[in-house]
């Protein structure tokens, strides 16, 4: 009996005693869903950091439970800003659900510098597989959007970039770890999708390409689609073809891309890009059974090839390489990385692009 009482008192002590350090209940934490970094106007405090924090709900309903608290602060560094922000909220900030980092367009050059990106890599709770995007005009405005279909704050953005919900060929996805890789890797340049807020929704149909120091250009939506296929190996695509005789659209659901760089002729290095697309007809001004399908395939191929060439030449003119041709060149040539890299730097500007597109139509849809 004495022993039982002893054990019970030990048990009570264990219970009553303080639990381990780091014990913090979930309701005492503020989940940061998205992080935004902007450039502030104050020169001594260049970082304008905004955090979108979810307000917890016990029952999730679309459009009702996506209330959030947006906190922002100017400081000389991100850490400083976060530290000061902690005094503005009543709960501990928890970054473990922060699945997206939005960079303000003004900030685009700074993010390429090591110390800014560093903060995200150093923190243990921001996942390496978090999404990254550029906010146009500013990150804070992107964070401050509340869409009607959202189940919780930031849900729309996650779904869009995840390609789990909408599967749009305009949406290019970029991850934090991949961005970091592209910033450091020779022959592979960074890019970021651009989010534009439109009232209570987003528009994500552009992509910004960088070299190693700054933002070089923003690609148009049409270019972005081609870009998405080349860089992110995105599988969904549609081809519109318009000639004098016929106008038709193909829905492509399988794309295979490979390329090789032919430098056998010193003066005119050529990049052969082989693309094979398999899809079905979606829309057509005439019956699809009038001519053999190979006729339509050839028509589509010409259009697509032109669009590929256009994008590749544009990237070449900007001297950026988000697709990783340079890395591929270094990988396929073996005479010392340094030598390969200098060789590539002279090759890239004069590289000619020969896209070889093959379109295969496997069905004409439900009608002829």
């Amino acid at each position, binding site marked *: 009996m004495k022993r039982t009482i002893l054990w019970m008192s030990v048990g009570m002590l264990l219970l009553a005693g303080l639990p381990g*350090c780091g014990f913090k209940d979930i309701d005492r934490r503020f989940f940061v869903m998205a992080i935004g970094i902007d450039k502030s106007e104050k020169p001594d405090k260049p970082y304008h950091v905004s955090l979108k924090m979810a307000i917890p709900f016990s029952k999730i309903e679309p459009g009702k439970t996506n209330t959030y608290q947006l906190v922002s602060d100017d400081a000389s560094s991100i850490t400083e800003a976060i530290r000061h922000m902690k005094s503005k909220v009543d709960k501990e900030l928890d970054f473990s659900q922060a699945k997206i980092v939005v960079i303000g367009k003004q900030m685009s050059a700074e993010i390429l510098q090591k110390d800014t990106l560093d903060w995200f890599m150093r923190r243990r709770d921001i996942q390496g597989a978090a999404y990254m995007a550029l906010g146009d005009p500013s990150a804070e405005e992107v964070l401050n959007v509340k869409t009607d279909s959202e189940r919780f704050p930031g849900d729309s953005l996650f779904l869009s970039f995840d390609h789990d919900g909408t599967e749009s060929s305009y949406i290019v996805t970029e*991850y934090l770890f991949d961005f970091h890789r592209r910033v*450091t890797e020779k022959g592979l340049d960074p890019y970021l999708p651009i989010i534009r807020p439109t009232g209570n929704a987003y528009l994500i149909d552009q992509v910004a390409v960088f070299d190693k120091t700054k933002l070089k250009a923003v690609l148009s939506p049409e270019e972005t689609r081609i870009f998405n296929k080349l860089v992110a190996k995105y599988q969904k695509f549609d081809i519109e073809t318009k000639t004098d005789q016929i106008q038709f659209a193909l829905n492509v659901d399988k794309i295979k891309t490979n390329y090789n760089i032919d430098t056998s002729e010193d003066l005119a290095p050529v990049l052969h890009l082989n693309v094979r697309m398999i899809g079905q007809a979606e829309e057509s001004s005439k019956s699809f059974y009038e001519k053999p399908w190979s006729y339509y395939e050839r028509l589509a191929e010409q259009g697509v090839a032109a669009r590929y060439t256009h994008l590749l030449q544009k990237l070449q003119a900007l001297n950026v390489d988000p697709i*990783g041709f340079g890395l591929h060149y*270094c*990988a396929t040539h073996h005479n010392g990385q340094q030598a390969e890299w200098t060789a590539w730097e002279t090759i890239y500007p004069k590289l000619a692009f020969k896209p070889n597109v093959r379109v295969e139509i496997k069905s004409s849809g439900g009608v002829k």
Partner: protein
Amino acid sequence: MSRYFFYFMSISMLIHTILIVPRDHMNARYDGAILSFLIGPAIGGVLVYAYTRSLSKFKGKGLPEIAAERLPKALSLPLVLGAGLMSFIAGGMAWIHCAFIISKYLNPDMSPYALLILFVIVTCAGAVQTSKTVLFSTEIIYIVCVPLLVVLLIHGLFSKSMNYDSVKVMLDYTWVMPSWSSLSAATNTFAGYMALSVFNRTFPADKQIKHLWLIPAVGLILELFSFFIPIGFHGTDGVDDYIYTWVSTVDAFRMKYLLIERVVSIYLLILLVVTYVFTMITWHVGAELVTGAFRIRPPKKASLRTQLPRLAVCVLIGIGTVIAGARFDETTLFKASSFWMGIRMPLDVLIVFAVVLLSRWRLKA
């Protein structure tokens, strides 16, 4: 029973390739790390072969008994004691590494020493069990955990984010002579065979361990994976920015339809369990060898009293580990661990050589 040999061999290989070694290899990635993957398994394979074959000539005996039988005490004592201490240090090192990782990624507000104390206590409790108990629990945890790790590796291999161009770029540096540290790191991956010095007692002597060629083959594959997957994910230069290469690599994995989205947390937990098993084995081996050096033989039936000398040794080493953990910071830890691997390799060769000699001598006599 010989399957147990593969368990502790592969546990040791896993621990080395994903916990201890990557940093060394990443530092030396332009300086011969790749060639060391080819030389390391070759050396390791020879050592494993020599050690297992020589020990299999001694039926059901461990290193302490063999040394006591065949060598004068002045020689046997340092040999067995040294082997025991080496085993202890390997385990302690793994714990400090693991405690740092866990306290950084899983329990960020907890000090590594608190964790280290917990780990060390549990490991001591495991190490003083009988050899069979150690092997049985190893098997269970192996069967549960290792498939998950293999799934992670394969996921990394076939991931869309894996850039094989970066990997191919690294191949430029294949034919660079490896430095001592990367060579010893690659060889140390195979150091698990040292556990056989104790577990040879439990293995039936009439059966040889078959399929030994698997060891260098699996080791080679693991080393290549553990080296190239992080490079494929983080780029040839970007990979250098990360301290715990593999943790950061797994953090970049996305498994959309997994129950738990952040794969890294699962990975850390598996890592923790595997480290538990690894340290339990190494400390068990260490305790048996150290007590065996002083002619304390394992009892038929374990009880608290018979295991007291082993417990005492383990507790001593455990306290040492905690103190060492408190003294080290990350940079000194990495330096210490690569220094340790550098001196461990020749010592291993020495022990294997001694045992091979002993087994030959016995045949002649």
